[in-house]
């Protein structure tokens, strides 16, 4: 088992003929992901990725023709909200939005519409997710993964790769690795994913990678203390970040009132019995100490 995506996932890519979309779709195909369709308005009837994937004008048509049950969005920020709404309108149950820089007020409306429709949204501004050896949806490099007992959830991109690589190097494989995104308004939060890992029989241990800003890590810590009995390890980025400055990710800002610091998150996690690593490279050892692998 795993969560969210697997070998049965029938993936649609919105923006498949764009530069980013084409590049990453090729990598997804090579990983073994079952890409059944692409959507680029005006290019319906063509084939993408060297003729391997049919392109449709609309998501509705793509779903009707191919039975796609997940979509990965690579369209530019100005069009991403509409792309997410189009996917929801066609009743695609899983929407993964990689696009960075979506205006927050647009996301507010998209979030609530998708929630009402019961659509699971990952992102935006996220690297996507990979179920090791089965399906890769998004931009996480495929070769860093190996199958094993650890589920990973993170707000970051390359930092996630860093931790996955460290685990793979240490012989600790993964079930699913989920990048939930660095924006203030995202579709799926830590608790949603932690809950899925907690219920997934194959996932024996969980790694959580947080960063400064907001209170999601603190809430996740409370959830873990209450619900999760699987071994866990965590890392929080941004101990040296100055207050009041946005550290790249739109959501990574320590409020001038002092909320959202790395220390506050670390304390909350430790109080929930979760060990927090000083460096991403220490995570495999913390898992081993907790009896994993």
């Amino acid at each position: 088992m795993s969560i969210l995506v697997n070998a049965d996932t029938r993936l649609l890519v919105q923006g498949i003929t764009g530069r980013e979309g084409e590049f990453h779709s090729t990598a997804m195909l090579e990983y073994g992901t079952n890409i059944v369709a692409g959507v680029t308005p005006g290019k319906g009837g063509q084939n993408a990725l060297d003729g391997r994937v049919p392109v449709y004008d609309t998501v509705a048509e793509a779903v009707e023709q191919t039975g796609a049950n997940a979509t990965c969005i690579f369209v530019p920020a100005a069009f991403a909200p509409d792309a997410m709404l189009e996917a929801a309108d066609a009743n695609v149950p899983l929407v993964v939005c990689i696009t960075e820089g979506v205006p927050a007020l647009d996301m507010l409306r998209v979030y609530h519409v998708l929630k009402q429709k019961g659509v699971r949204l990952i992102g935006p501004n996220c690297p996507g997710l990979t179920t090791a050896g089965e399906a890769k949806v998004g931009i996480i490099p495929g070769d860093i993964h190996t199958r094993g007992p650890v589920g990973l959830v993170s707000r970051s991109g390359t930092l996630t790769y860093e931790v996955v690589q460290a685990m793979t190097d240490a012989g600790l494989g993964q079930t699913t690795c989920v990048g939930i995104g660095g924006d203030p308004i995202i579709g799926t939060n830590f608790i949603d994913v932690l809950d899925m890992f907690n219920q997934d029989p194959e996932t024996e241990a969980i790694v959580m990678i947080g960063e400064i800003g907001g209170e999601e890590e603190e809430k996740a810590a409370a959830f873990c203390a209450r619900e999760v009995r699987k071994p866990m390890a965590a890392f929080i980025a941004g101990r040296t970040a100055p207050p009041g400055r946005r550290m790249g990710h739109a959501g990574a800002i320590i409020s001038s009132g002092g909320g959202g610091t790395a220390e506050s998150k670390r304390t909350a996690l430790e109080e929930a019995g979760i060990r927090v690593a000083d460096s991403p490279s220490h995570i495999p050892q913390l898992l081993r100490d907790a009896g994993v692998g």
Partner: protein
Amino acid sequence: MKLQEYRSKEILERHGVPLLAGTTATTPDEAREAARAIGGPVVVKAQVLVGGRGKAGGVKLAATPDEAAEKAREIIGLDIKGTTVKTVLIAPAADIAHEYYLGLILDRATKAITVIASAEGGVEIEETAKTNPEAILRLPLHPLIGLQEHETRRIGFFLGIPAELRKDFAKVMRGLYAAFVESDADLAEINPLVVTDDGQLLALDAKIVLDDSALPRHPDLEEMRDLNEEEPSEIAAREAGISFIKLDGSIGCMVNGAGLAMTTMDLVKLAGGEPANFLDIGGGAKQDKVTAAFKIILDDPNVKAILINIFGGITRGDEVARGIVEARSNLERDVPMVVRIVGTNSEEAKPILAEANLITADSLDDAAAKAVAAVRGAA
């Protein structure tokens, strides 16, 4: 992007919020003229983006135009938390009978635009939240239908707005909401919103913070950016499409990805060094961006070494290495550089880096330690 008070007031005024806008001045003479045009007592207010300007002596009353010039002379050039005051706002002084706090924020937790209101105006809302949390109303607005009249009434009753000013309050509330939505704000606050002795409801001070992601669709608001308040290096970075924040340490950092960039800074600190900056060059590590990043980092004379941490992933490591070597060969100033490249072809990257006299590292911890050692060696 934070807007200055006078810019925030411009936006609110456009949306019908009653206020005494005033005039900006950058010299004492301009301040005198502005005060004369207003007639009567004025308040001279430093236009800076940091909080606490009142306590720092950045807000002063003046009874006459000459006094306004004198106060402006005192305030212009004043250092408030590291920002030198260049501009003051000259606004009519108001006799305050009561002060309120009224703000809108984009709340991540409720995923709604949320009203924050308090009858204790004039103090920072974070302060009221600590000392008297019951005095604060937090009201999340429906994300799809927005502010409704009954909510405006409820907020007015909570604040205890006098009956004869309820219609004016509705105008303030609607104007603030419209300003927030139409300018894609993260935060819009009026603090204080006052009732004057002669019974007017006025926004005396205002602050708007805009969502950077939405700025591309608001070129008119982008023009309100105050370059005086930004580090020149941060302006250069923004123009190059690089995310950069200057800090005070000696180890420059160049990283792809925001989370990894923060982690790199944290590990520099953990290894006993001090990071000189946060820098995310984004995906791909293209050579033009690497060149721009080198210039921005080395523009800071405190930088004694640079740590480059690229998790290539799908990007080829040897290409990134060649880009770094090439970009470095065109630099005016050189410092020891520690380079760590992970991903496809990272082994092929190493000889390219070593040949160019760059220090290589396998792990991030190792890279941080080597960067700290390089700074100590240079000192």
